[in-house]
């Protein structure tokens, strides 16, 4: 990590004769010609970071904001209770692990924000999360140093992150964000450090940094899926370096291939393996039934201790005469259900209602019959006949003796679909009761199997498929879900599976054997997660945060709104607005230089080298910023203010680099007698503004005691610069 100062490509400041001691220090600082200087500066930055982050880390002693979710998830890991969440498991697992290691017993319920932590050892989890969040500052320092080899730039970038109250707030609690940000920044540190080893390929440090990057990447993706953006970033970085290697004709193709394979190993294979490992741990640790079961398929549930399907045993194959229950195979689908009530006047034919119902109930039982034979036609010693893919069957509702029936009448809620009813008496109905069973991706004549097969029931005459979805019936239908016959046979809501299967003549076999293996469970958790994620849509009338509001710090987010201790997540406006300003400046500078190059203007080599280096570093940072910000515009799901923070980190680093570039360019633009003192003055001015603004806004992060009598006169009322800030 020690700096190799000889690499510094920037101009040496002119040393004039009359220099006071401050100026000397500054020159030392700018040149950074000894590792000692580097370590001193780095040490100071780390100390300040630790001081700001761990100050009042235990406050408030109640549940803050999303701690209610992530604390709860942590507890569930400790209790080994299965749950469902839209994010991958690593972050929550780490929180659980922190809690476990620091003596938290997982018994606190985390019901809602504001619940007091009395007597619960929550501090360990907070401190660990905060510690991960604190790493961001040194990480930024290292990244910018490796990109520019300029100590002032590194310090500037690190301090912009250090003194941002928003980041401070976000990384002080039991949340996924500090963990996510840690892994994102870690990945970037990894890739720049790895890049720095390019002179000695395949050395130990080269491999070490490669693997470090890979593991950090897997960490960020396994914490939240937005971690994918940093994977893209690292991918682009890698492609660029490979492209350069490949374009150098001195390198043989085998050599390039070796490089390629090594990177594939470290940046693709390793993260993928780690990702699987995290899921393996997740699925192994959570082995008890919890409140997330309903999101998963019957087969999945059969493996959870305490679930009604656990250790259940029933026939594997479906035979005529079996009593079954059918579950809609979509996420969260219910059981096919009927009851003695009829559809009301005006909602199609007045026949018995068919619904889906999420609870297990006697009314979910259906008898499987041949299309042309009644159960009475069979003798007891007839051979067992199995139901095969493509067979025509009828389903009789066991308690009421009515057959599952459909006809060309509009369904009560979804008018474009056909109504499904219970029809007939004691199993005698008409030809509209006949359904064809189709096994999805099944072979012809394949026997229909319990749980594992996804089935489609196609109405023989109308050609529509039995379907259920999330739409509720009105009060007359007890607000159960509507069941219709869907003319679009390929709809994914048309799929069902048999969950219970009672047929004494066939041997029972344990469910265990056709319970899903790890890979199937892994895939199913992903489908469920993606469905959950895309289901997070803003509802009508709900205000969601808009991406354009984020960079301008338009509106914050209440973390703790309890009287006596208020915390409000809001960025330090000086830093945020400054970042925007610098970003605009970068775009201008970039286009100015692009224009000059295109016009064929030539600069002297030193300026050019310095500028190119800066612009390259800036280019990568802008790319990272864009990758972490722009995709949110395309997202349909509900968005929050804190989604901007990964982008903010890169924006702040960019500001550091650009400011350093401008500060270095300035002395040459001012009169000679000023040139040696202008740098210290500007630096001093910059840092004092930064620290002062941090001091002003710090109460937002450390907590505002609004019941304190001095509160009314405190500074908090003066710093509400925008009306949209809600504190």
């Amino acid at each position, binding site marked *: 990590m020690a700096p190799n100062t000889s690499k510094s490509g920037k101009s040496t400041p002119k040393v004039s004769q009359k220099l006071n001691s401050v100026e000397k220090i500054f020159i030392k600082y700018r040149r950074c010609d000894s590792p000692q200087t580097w370590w001193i500066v780095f040490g100071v930055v780390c100390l300040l970071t630790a001081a700001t982050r761990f100050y009042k880390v235990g406050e408030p002693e109640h549940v803050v904001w999303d701690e209610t979710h992530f604390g709860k998830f942590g507890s569930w890991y400790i209790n080994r209770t299965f749950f469902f969440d839209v994010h991958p498991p690593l972050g929550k697992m780490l929180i659980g692990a922190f809690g476990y290691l620091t003596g938290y017993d997982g018994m606190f319920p985390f019901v809602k924000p504001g619940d007091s932590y009395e007597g619960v050892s929550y501090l360990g989890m907070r401190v660990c999360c905060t510690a991960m969040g604190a790493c961001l500052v040194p990480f930024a320092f290292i990244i910018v140093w490796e990109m520019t080899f300029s100590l002032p730039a590194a310090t500037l970038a690190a301090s912009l992150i250090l003194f941002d109250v928003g980041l401070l707030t976000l990384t002080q609690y039991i949340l996924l964000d500090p963990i996510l940000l840690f892994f994102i920044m870690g990945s970037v540190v990894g890739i720049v450090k790895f890049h720095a080893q390019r002179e000695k390929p395949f050395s130990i440090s080269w491999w070490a940094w490669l693997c470090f990057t890979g593991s950090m990447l897997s960490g960020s993706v396994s914490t939240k899926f937005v971690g994918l953006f940093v994977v893209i970033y690292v991918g682009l970085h890698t492609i660029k370096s490979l492209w350069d290697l490949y*374009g150098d004709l001195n390198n043989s193709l085998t050599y390039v291939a070796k490089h390629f394979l090594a990177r594939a190993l470290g940046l693709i294979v390793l993260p993928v393996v780690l990702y699987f490992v995290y899921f393996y741990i997740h699925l192994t640790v959570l082995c008890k039934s919890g409140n997330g079961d309903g999101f998963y398929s019957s087969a999945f549930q059969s493996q959870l201790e305490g679930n009604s399907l656990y250790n259940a045993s029933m026939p594997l194959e479906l035979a005529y005469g079996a009593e079954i229950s059918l579950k809609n195979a979509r996420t969260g689908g219910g059981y096919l259900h009927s009851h003695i009530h009829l559809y009301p006047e005006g909602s199609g034919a007045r026949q018995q209602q068919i619904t889906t119902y999420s609870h297990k109930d006697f009314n979910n039982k259906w008898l499987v019959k041949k299309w042309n034979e009644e159960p009475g036609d069979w003798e007891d010693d007839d051979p067992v006949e199995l139901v095969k893919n493509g067979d025509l069957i009828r389903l009789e509702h066991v308690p009421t003796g009515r057959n599952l029936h459909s006809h060309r009448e509009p369904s009560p809620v979804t008018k474009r679909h056909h109504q499904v009813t219970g029809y007939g008496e004691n199993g005698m109905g008409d030809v509209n009761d006949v359904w064809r069973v189709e096994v999805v991706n099944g072979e012809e004549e394949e026997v229909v199997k319990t749980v594992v097969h996804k089935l489609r029931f196609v109405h023989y005459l109308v050609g529509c498929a039995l379907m259920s979805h999330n739409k509720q019936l009105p009060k007359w239908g007890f607000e159960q879900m509507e069941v219709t016959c869907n003319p*679009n046979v390929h709809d994914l809501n048309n799929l069902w599976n048999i969950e219970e299967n009672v047929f004494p003549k066939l041997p029972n076999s344990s469910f265990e054997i056709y319970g899903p293996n790890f890979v199937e469970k892994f895939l199913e958790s992903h489908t469920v997660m993606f469905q959950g994620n895309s289901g997070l849509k803003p509802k009508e009338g709900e205000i969601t945060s808009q991406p354009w509001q984020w960079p301008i710090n338009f509106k914050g987010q209440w973390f703790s709104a309890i009287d006596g201790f208020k915390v409000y997540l809001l960025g330090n406006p000086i830093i945020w607005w400054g970042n925007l300003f610098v970003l605009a400046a970068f775009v201008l500078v970039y286009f100015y230089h692009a224009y000059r190059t*295109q*016009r064929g203007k030539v600069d002297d080599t030193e300026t050019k080298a310095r500028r190119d280096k800066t612009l390259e570093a800036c280019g990568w940072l802008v790319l990272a910023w864009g990758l972490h910000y722009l995709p949110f515009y395309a997202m349909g799901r509900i968005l929050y203010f804190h989604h901007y923070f990964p982008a903010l980190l890169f924006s702040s680093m960019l500001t550091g680099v650009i400011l350093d570039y401008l500060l270095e360019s300035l002395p040459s633009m001012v009169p000679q007698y000023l040139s040696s003192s202008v740098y210290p003055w500007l630096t001093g001015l910059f840092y004092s503004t930064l620290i002062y603004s941090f001091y002003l806004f710090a109460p937002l992060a450390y907590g505002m005691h609004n019941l304190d009598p001095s509160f009314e006169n405190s500074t908090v009322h003066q710093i509400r610069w925008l009306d949209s800030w809600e504190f």
Partner: protein
Amino acid sequence: MDTGVRNRKNKSSPEAEKAIKGKIEEITSVDNHNMLKESIEKLKHLNENINRDSGDGESAPDTPPPETAPEDSLTTPSPTTTTPSTTTTTPSTTRTTESTTKPSVTQKSSARQKSKNAAKSAAAAPPLELSLRLDGMSVFLFVLAFITRIWKLETPKGIVFDELHYGKYASLYMQNTFFFDSQPPLGKQLIALAAYIAGFDGNFKFDRIGTPYDPVVPVSAMRIVPAFFGSLLMPTVYNTMVELGLSHYTGALAAFLMIFDNAVLAQSRFILMEGILMFFGVFGLLCILKFRRFYHQPYSVPWFVCLIIGAASLSACVCVRYFGIFTFLLGLGILTRDFWMMVGDRLVSERQLLGHFLTRAVIFITIPVALYIGCFYVHLSLLYKAGPNDNIMTSAFQASLEGGLASIIANQPVKVVHGSQITLRHTHGRTCWLHSHDAVYPVKYPDGRGSSHQQQVTCYSYKDVNNWWIVKKPEVEELVVTEPHEPIKNGDLVQLVHGLTSRALNSHDVAAGMSPHNQEVAAYIDYNVSMPAQTTWRVEILNSELSDGYWHAVESQIRLIHVNSSQALKFSGRQLPDWGFRQHEVVTDKVLDQEDTIWNVEEHRYTRTEDKKEREKDLLRSEMIPMERKNLTFWNKLFELQYKMLFNNQENVAGHMYASEPLDWLFLKRGVAYWISANSNAQVHFIGNIVTWLSGTLSLVAYLGLFVLYLLRRQRACYDLPEDSWNKFCTFGEVLGIGYAVHYIPYFLVDRTLFLHHYMPAYIFKLCMLAAMIEHGHYLVSQHFKAPRIAKLYLGAVGVWMVSIVYVFWFFAPVTYGTTDLTADQVMSMAWRETWDLIIHKQ
């Protein structure tokens, strides 16, 4: 036929070029050598572009053109190497094949010309002739396309798919009735114009797909608009391909693929927007590409014509469909890129650059803006009558329409005063009125929270007598309007008394039913029982400058701030369950500045009597006197309409039976049933030509693969293609590949029900890419195998492939035209893929 003109150089130009080269080489220094080299390349390229087309006349025709030179020189690296020979032994095999296969068309068109202007053709070969020859092919393509499109245009004589909408819009235009649609109006206007010319009076109810047309509906006049534009598309595509540096054959092939694609045909045969949209888009691009030719004649007439028509056509594309913005951006991108090349041209001074930049900027800002606003101007001035779905607009807007709200609010007093009876409308978003009725909030909610058990206040989406409220000043007891009037001003405190139940609008610190983080709003009579009434509200008028601070009916947008809690009355967007009769919830919210807290008075009259019974009678009576419409300026209307169009969340037809996903489009997984005859299996099913479709997808993959391969090899300094072929390969890839991407990829981000026809604009680019790749394939084949036999074999294969395309087109023609009665077996034989849901009537 004299085609040699194309090869003739403008005499001065190569010399100039040489001079330029010399100059540049002089100033070339070591460190920027590469950069310079590059710009020289570009310059050369540009010059070539100019040279090859410099046949537009002004230069003296002193060099007699070689009589029968091959007409195509687009791929010729430099004009000097062109041999004016007709033999097939020229080194470039590309040209060879062209000259071997060309004559038929050339002769045909030349024959036509000769007959036309036999007198002229002898001596000079003016460039006019050239353009006529080009027209020959274009005309042929147009005619062929037009015939396929208008054949039996009248059938089916029923509403086909979205004709339901576009036909209805046309009839509403005829009747001057306002309608709301979230797409801009230009396409609909063109169709309405045709209908108008054909004498349609709008008297036809477009109620559902399949309804047979009355004889009064000029079906063919309306269908001929898309058919015409859809046919113009073919010559446009042809010329665009030529402009991209591809051969005329390739251009014609692209047009051929489009003519014989069932999807393109169906889309331009019925009253649908895609035909118009695609034509404007491609034509705009063509102009922008043509514009490149006039690099050395800036500010000349053709230079301006290309730029202006290009801008206009691209903006017309946006005015038909908002998705046309991607075509517009593509055109703008090409223009910007060319400009950037010009920046690198050091013969152009900075002052000239600025001039160029400004001209382009001015043209590309004024024309789109003018056109866009223009078509809305026509739209709004034509549609001045109230219609069925103007509820979505604000009261002020509705009042400006004749016969709608205007008739209801006619003669109503403007200033809201103490004693005014009003209905309060939720201004933005969902249309509903503040409402209360004789039912109370349930004592306990399912989640265990309690309510105030007071009378419900809701937002109701229908007009109802329970929507009436009486404005009352807190200090005045009587409800009649006092003389003199006491108008309510911005910031005044008022109470709102519900007309029929006489309870006052009240809010208090009780969590609302569906939004527990907001306060409940109830109607309440203060009997001085347990709690003090909290019924005073402050009126905040948002646009008080319009009315001098007074509260006006209709136009004033107000916020009601609850005085005790400083929260604003808000429509929460949630629906109440059965106990609230599924009306919408009203709450107060501490976030004041949001759209859902804005309300306005819609209906308004003064209370004349204090007697409660009389007042009720008064309320129950409603007057209906049609009156003059209120005026709202065009700009106000435009802004409101724009806002509604862009931000109105359309009702999503989730799970439409024929909906498809962008990924399905690549492989033509699903079609769309457009129409089926009531008494036979004759039907229109929107499905593409599967051969073209899959080859198109394949060609994209091939392009990408080859591009990466070439790039990889070039990075290792293996130059497989000569520089000019490589440039050509990049040029068409840039326009066609990027064009495809920008028309396709955005659909992955669209959160709406999508259909196959959304893919059509991207599909056009895919077909062009397919044609271009076939040319490239031919080039590669003739490069690698010296024997001309192989190249011929390749062409033969292409020929077979083309025949198969025509066959498939012919095979599916019955369901594209919908004219033939089909048996069930015939229909089944067309379901080539399991997922193609063609319809069969049950016997």
